[in-house]
């Protein structure tokens, strides 16, 4: 992959982000020892190209059921929701038109916020990263985006203190992923009101 290879990515996910999200290695390298290397680095399964659909689904099924089983009762489920519209809905007395209008305002704002953070990261403009991350906290809190809020707080703190752009980039990648998922979730919610 450009910029960061799979090994580095896994290292970041496991050791910097501290996430145990299931990872399936996918590679064209059919060299001996490759599978062992992937698993040693913390990946959960290994597949060499060409990818067999059946094997992929089997791997996914095994990993996802394992995950939800391990997490049952203690940790969050894999499909934990990223947003929670209870607050928004209550705030406007469940008025459908207003809910749709506010959802649209969120979708536009979060896009603007993340783009501006990304631009500031590219320019290593820590002051702007700090400001926009701060502003974005209000945006996501409206939609009950607790996880996104936590990452934004980290980005803001990193921009103020350590100014470690690589760490901020990693956090941003995480944020961007949540933002994409929140957008899908929220559009499903929106369809219930329009």
């Amino acid at each position, binding site marked *: 992959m450009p910029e960061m290879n799979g090994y580095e990515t896994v290292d970041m996910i496991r050791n910097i982000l501290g996430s145990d999200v299931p990872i399936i290695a996918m590679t064209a390298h059919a060299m001996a020892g490759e599978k062992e290397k992937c698993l040693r680095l913390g990946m959960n399964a290994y597949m060499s190209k060409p990818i067999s659909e059946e094997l992929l689904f089997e791997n996914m099924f095994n990993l996802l059921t394992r995950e939800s089983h391990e997490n049952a009762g203690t940790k969050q489920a894999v499909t934990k929701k990223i947003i929670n519209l209870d607050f928004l809905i209550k705030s*406007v007395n469940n008025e459908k038109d207003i809910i749709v209008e*506010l959802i649209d305002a969120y979708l536009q704002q979060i896009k603007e916020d993340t783009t501006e953070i990304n631009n500031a990261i590219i320019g290593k403009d820590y002051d702007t990263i700090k400001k926009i991350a701060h*502003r974005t906290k209000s945006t996501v809190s409206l939609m009950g985006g607790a996880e996104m809020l936590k990452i934004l707080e980290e980005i803001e703190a990193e921009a103020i203190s350590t100014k470690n752009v690589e760490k901020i980039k990693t956090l941003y990648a995480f944020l961007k992923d949540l933002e994409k998922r929140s957008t899908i979730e929220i559009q499903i919610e929106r369809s219930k009101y329009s």
Partner: protein
Amino acid sequence: MGFLKNLFKSKSPRTGLVFIVEDNAAYAKMLQAYLKTNFSSIKEIQLFPVGETCLLNLHKNPDAIIVDYFLDTKYADAETGLEIVKRIRVEKPEMNIIVLSAQKEIGVVMDSVKKYNCSYVKKDETAFERVNEIMKDIFSIE
């Protein structure tokens, strides 16, 4: 909340107009929708993403102005919320001003808003309710 009544004692007639000065458009819209839904005394709520445009509209005599503490993410040269508050105070010493902030360290914010006789609301999950309470106080004064 008794002190607020003294603080906001004002003889000018109510206009039913409220300004929200906030550079986060989604947040501003949400607060606007919340106040419209929950507060019938408010007839109109105008949004200003940049503080300077709010200053140009002070002659409309809003009953209250809600200002975000930072407010400088839209344009690099835009003034911060605190600077806007200072300028509002110069032109309208009696104005009801509510400062909003997502700041974690609220000490700095508190010191500055106290200096300019503002109410302060932290942007958390109860923020809208507290703005609503302050609005009730403002609108209950004859």
